[in-house]
Each structure stands twice: as structure tokens, then as C-alpha cells.
């Protein structure tokens, strides 16, 4: 029953996206989707989320380095505490909370997602997202993990040095200093 419902809903969502003339999503999302078509229709929605969290800048973004594929696998295996149906449940909850979310511009989507994102990390229970919107925290964690553990995220966006060969306890830093993704203390204890 649920599978049938989800399938029908995904068809509706996909159809709605198509009807919106592709302008509702960043072009790069579609480019990747066309280049590497997903076996899962939810991938389009997931790609939107990935792009909203980590977009392309002077380095590739989450979509470009296949984070959606990682998140799909990660959710199936329960990483970050996400239930196996986290993506479809969050998708349904978000579209219920923000009708027409998929028709919004990138900036409008950012603005729509921001209260949910802020609330997910708030200590104020009144701001904490309710119901399946609370799944955002786990989904975002997986997007972040997927990006910064990719080769591009690790070694182009950040710096990755597997064998430093020495420990220098004090080097200068300023606003242009990039973090080491291979700083395992800095990663484990975030």
C-alpha cells in the first residue's frame, strides 16, 4: 500500500517538475540528472536538496560529485540514524509544509528551507521541526558527509594530505586558509 502510494506521489512530483518547464531547478541539477540518470525518481528531489546545501562555486558542488547517489545508499544502510524511508517521508513533509516548493527559485528554496534548517539545530524546542521535517538533520548530515568525503570535496574544496610526514604545531592562518579534510581529530570531534 505504501509503496503504491509513494510511487504515485513520486510520479505526481516528477510530473509537476516537468510541467514547471525545468526552470524551477538549477540547470546543473538537470545536467547531472541527464548525464547520470538515477534509477530512483526521488533523486531529483534529493539533488535539489544537495544543491541547496552545497552548491557549485569555484569548486564543484554536491550534485557534481554524486552526493545524491551516496545519500541514497547511506539512507538504505541507516547512516546518521536516518530511517530507510527518510527521503520520501521528508519530501512529502516538505511539500506539505511548503506547497509548490519545487516551483520556487533557488533563492526562494533557500529561504523556505532555512527555518527548517535553523530549527533542526536549535535548542529551543518551539523551533524544532515537527514530524517528518525533523528528518532534515540526518539528511543534511549525509549530504555534508557525502560531499566532504568525496575526492573533490576532500582535496579540491578542502586540503587532503594522507602522509604529512611532520607535525607543525603552529602555522599562520587567515580567512583564506582552507581546512584539512585529513585532520582526523578535527573531523572526528567536529
Amino acid at each position, binding site marked *: 500500500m505504501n509503496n503504491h502510494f509513494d510511487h504515485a506521489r513520486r510520479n505526481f512530483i516528477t510530473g509537476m517538475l516537468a510541467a514547471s518547464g525545468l526552470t524551477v531547478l538549477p540547470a546543473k541539477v538537470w545536467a547531472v540528472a541527464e548525464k547520470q540518470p538515477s534509477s530512483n525518481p526521488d533523486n531529483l528531489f534529493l539533488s535539489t536538496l544537495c544543491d541547496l546545501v552545497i552548491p557549485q562555486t569555484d569548486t564543484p558542488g554536491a550534485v557534481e560529485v554524486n552526493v545524491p547517489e551516496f545519500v541514497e*545508499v547511506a539512507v538504505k544502510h541507516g*547512516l546518521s540514524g536516518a530511517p530507510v524511508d527518510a527521503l520520501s517521508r521528508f519530501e512529502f513533509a516538505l511539500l506539505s509544509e511548503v506547497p509548490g516548493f519545487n516551483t520556487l527559485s533557488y533563492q526562494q528554496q533557500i529561504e523556505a528551507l532555512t527555518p527548517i534548517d535553523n530549527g533542526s539545530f536549535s535548542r529551543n524546542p518551539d523551533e524544532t521541526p515537527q514530524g517528518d521535517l525533523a528528518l532534515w538533520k540526518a539528511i543534511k548530515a549525509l549530504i555534508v558527509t557525502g560531499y566532504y568525503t568525496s575526492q573533490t570535496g576532500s582535496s579540491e574544496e*578542502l586540503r587532503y594530505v594522507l602522509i604529512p610526514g611532520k607535525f607543525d604545531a*603552529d602555522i599562520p592562518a587567515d580567512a583564506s586558509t582552507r581546512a584539512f579534510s585529513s*585532520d*582526523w*581529530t578535527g573531523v572526528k570531534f*567536529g
Partner: protein
Amino acid sequence: MSEQYDAIVVGSGITGGWAAKTLCEQGLKVLLLERGRELPHRSGYKNEMKSPWELPFRGEGDQALLDEHQAVQQHNIHLDEWTQDYWVKDSEHPYQTQNDTAFNWYRGYHLGGRSIMWGRQCYRWSDTDFEANVKDGYGTDWPVRYSDLESWYDKVEAFIGVSGAKENLPQLPDGQFQPPMALTPVETHMREHIAAHYPDRRLTIGRTANLTESKPEEGRAACQSRYICGRGCSYGAYFSTQSSTLPAAMATGNLTVKTDAVVETVDYDSELKRARGVTVINRLDKKRTQYAARMVFLCAGSFNSVALLQRSVSDAFPHGLANNSGVLGKYIMDHASTLGAASVVPGFNDHYYYGNRPTGIVIPRFVNMGEDKRAFLRGFSYQGGAYRPSWSRGRNMPGLGHAFKENLRQPGDWKFVLTTFAECLPRESNAISQNWQSKDADGLPVLNINFAFGKNEHDLLSAAKEEAAAMVAKAGGHVLFGSDRPNPGGSAIHEMGGARMGRDAKTSILNGYNQSHDVPNLFVTDGAAMASSACQNPSLTYMALTARAATYAAEQLRAGRV
């Protein structure tokens, strides 16, 4: 006919390697038995050089599989997708806890045992620790003092390679150190402010079994500052059985190693009143084999050594071998640990670091020392350090889009953390026993663990939280979080006791040379022998006790006294 050796060593971890090396170098023919698989140095570390993107789950591990097979082990921060194969499958090696108590029993069943995954912190104990039991009456008096172990600490440190700074502290004696690793600017700042406000307190670099100078004669290179030690180190830069004691033992030509050899019992000869050897279950085909030896060393890891004695019942020892005292399995301990303080330290973001230092800092015990008198007994120490968070902070902070990505591009604000390790009093009620009705994958009875921290440990953690916050504040840090609630027992991975040393055969299992009071050719030299826990990491003391006991045992054997 069983194979005959001079000595059998059960377990190939930190103490098993030391026992094998020492006994072999004394000219004895030694059989080293390891219950787990072979794990060859270098070629066995299959994930060592892999980057996150080369792993199916990017280093996180398959959570579904972890939940199914490593429900306990996964709680250890050192278990990840690179290292998970080194940690036992709880599904194959279950244990039970009693009376709603919690105990996380972390184990590694393979050649080298937990020497592959250990935290490498090396601290001497002092007479503050060895005299603690007799002074306050909890536990029984240690049959040794610092002077008995000092030269053995020297030998062990020189061989394994310990980097550290000399501080001339009576409660944390200096050792034979390689050059220390450097403090970061925030740690130096903390050291200076703590010293200025608390003359009796010292922040110093963690003393760690990572080489800062190579030991080419042993085929070991200096640390490459990767801090991926838990994957195994092909440089041999940290001490493990594979990098250090096993090659030394092999070089004598006196060592035989058998892996997949689960020791079921130590076999007792009631006529000779000696251990005659062991019975081994082959892990793979389940066939039993007996091996004979003139003496037996148990180095299987504290609880497993005790369990082996408890399984070894006979008419002479119906309640476990070498248990005439009745205290076998009792007085187990683990340090009460928790995150004492997590703080941010402003004003240093124009500093960063290069490379990964494989140790942190330590603030040795200062309570109940000198003029510092408290209402509780004994003490605590801190370990921790300063660092700048990397990208993973993005999993726990709000933010989206370009600004979020730009934020994570830079290292985060400096953090300084102090983890508390509090001494655990020896209590009779904290005990392990056999569940004869339930068996693990090797066919051995599973262990019942009954363990709880008491009021003294809670009081220690409470004081530690308060003191940590005060020290951080004096240095200009802002405490974000501090805890005085202990992590579950076992979390420090310093489980010890159960076959304690003591002066009186009526109240202890082992004498001052880790020798059974009841079975003179039986020695237990791992953490099971501990009569108290101190608040320092215990492995260095295990090694010193083992080297000393093995040397003594060889002398006794030559003299015909065991």
C-alpha cells in the same frame, strides 16, 4: 602426544607479546597462542592507505551491519570503516551484564590483539598509586612498589619508544622518553595560565608510544603524523606486537605462533600440583588439541584471562583454577570517564597546524595530593587537547548554500577539551562470572559482567567537571559542555582486575611476581592482575609487570623452582 614447550603464552596483545619476547630472550621455547586470525605486519593493514572516497561508506561504515554485528563495539570512537574488522563481532562473541548495569567490553581478536588499536598513552604509576589501597583500606595492598618496577619501566619505554616531556612530578614519574611532540598555541596558552593560577597543576604533552625518532635497528620509522594509527601502521611508528615485540621474539628462533587457537582451559595436574598445559579449540574446525609446557602465562586480556581460569575447573579447583582464595573474578575495575569540559578558546584563529599529532595533552592528578584534601578518595586526571574542527561540524550547525560552503572551507574556531579519567575503587560486588548455559561462536561460555560505579567515582567526576570549567575559564575559554556522568563501564577500555596481586594468598590470586599463589607455574600478567586502578592509563604498567614476571619465571624455571 601433545607438543611440549618450556612456556605457553595465551594471548598475543600488549602483554602477550612482551611475555613471548622476554621468555624467548631468556632461551625458553615458547608457544604463543592467539584466538583470532593471523594479522601480518604491513600487508595485513588493508585499509591503512585508503582515502574516504575509496570506501563504500566513506569511512562511516555500514550502520545496518554495525547494528547487527557490532552493537557494542560501534560505540567506540576508534571504530570506523577503516578499522572495524579489528573489533570483535558482538554477535559472535556476546556477553551479558547483570542487574541493569552497563558495561561496554571492547575487544580485538586477531594477532596482536588490542595492541593494534590501543590509544598508546604511556604513564608510569607512582607510590601514590601503589600505596593507595593500604592507606585508605579499599582493596588489598599491592605487593610491589614503584622501586620494584622502575627499572622495568625503563626497559619497556626504551624498547617500545615513548615520546614525552619530563616534568619532575612525583605522581607521574618521568621515563626514558624520546623527544616530545609539540603543544599547539592554545595548549601552550592553557599550560601557562593553569600554571600561573594553580602552581600544583601541570598541563603536559601526552606520553605516547609513537616514535619521534626512528629505530632503524628494529625496522621502525618515526611517526609520519598521519594519526591513523588504529588502521595499523606500516611504518611501525607506534608500538604494537607486530611492530615491536613479535619480531624480537621471532628473532630468537625460540618462538612458535599459532593463530585461530582458542584456549579452552588451562589443564591442571593434581599430582604434581602444577599446570601441565592448555587445551585449545581450533577456531576454524573446532578440533581440540592439548599443548604441554613447563609453565603457562595468561595474557589474554583482563577479563578473558579471568574467564579462562574460571573455565579451568577440576576436583582440586572446583571454582576456577588458582582460586583457593575465592576472589577470582572479583574486584574488577575500569576508569570512570566522561567529557569533563568542551570549550571554545577565542583569539587564536590566526594559528593553525599542519599534520596530525597522534597524542593529546594530559593534566596529571592534583586532588588529594599535598595540601589538596578532598572529601572523596583518590583522584582523577585529564586527557584532551586543542584542535580546530574540520568539515564535520557542518553536520551539526545550521546553514545552507554558498555561505555554508564558504564557512566550512575554513577551519573552525579553536576548541579545547578535557576528558576525565577517575580512579575506580576495587569492589567485591564488581565481578565477572561464567554463564555455562550460553556459548559464543567458539563454544566458550559467555561472560556475565556485573559492574557499577559507586559514589566515590561520581564524586570524583563531579569535582573534575568543576575544576575543568574553572581552569578553562581562567585561561579565557568558554565552556560549552561539561559532564560529571560516567560513560558506561568499559568505555575507557581499561578494564582490569579479577585476578589481583596481593601479599596474602587468602585474599589475592597472584603474588608480587604475577605468579599464582596456588599453582606456582602459572602466571597472569595482563590487567587481570591489578589490585587498584589509579587514574593513569595502565598498559605501560602491564608491560613492566610482564617483563619483570617473565624474567623472574625464567630464572625460577632454570633453578627448578617452578
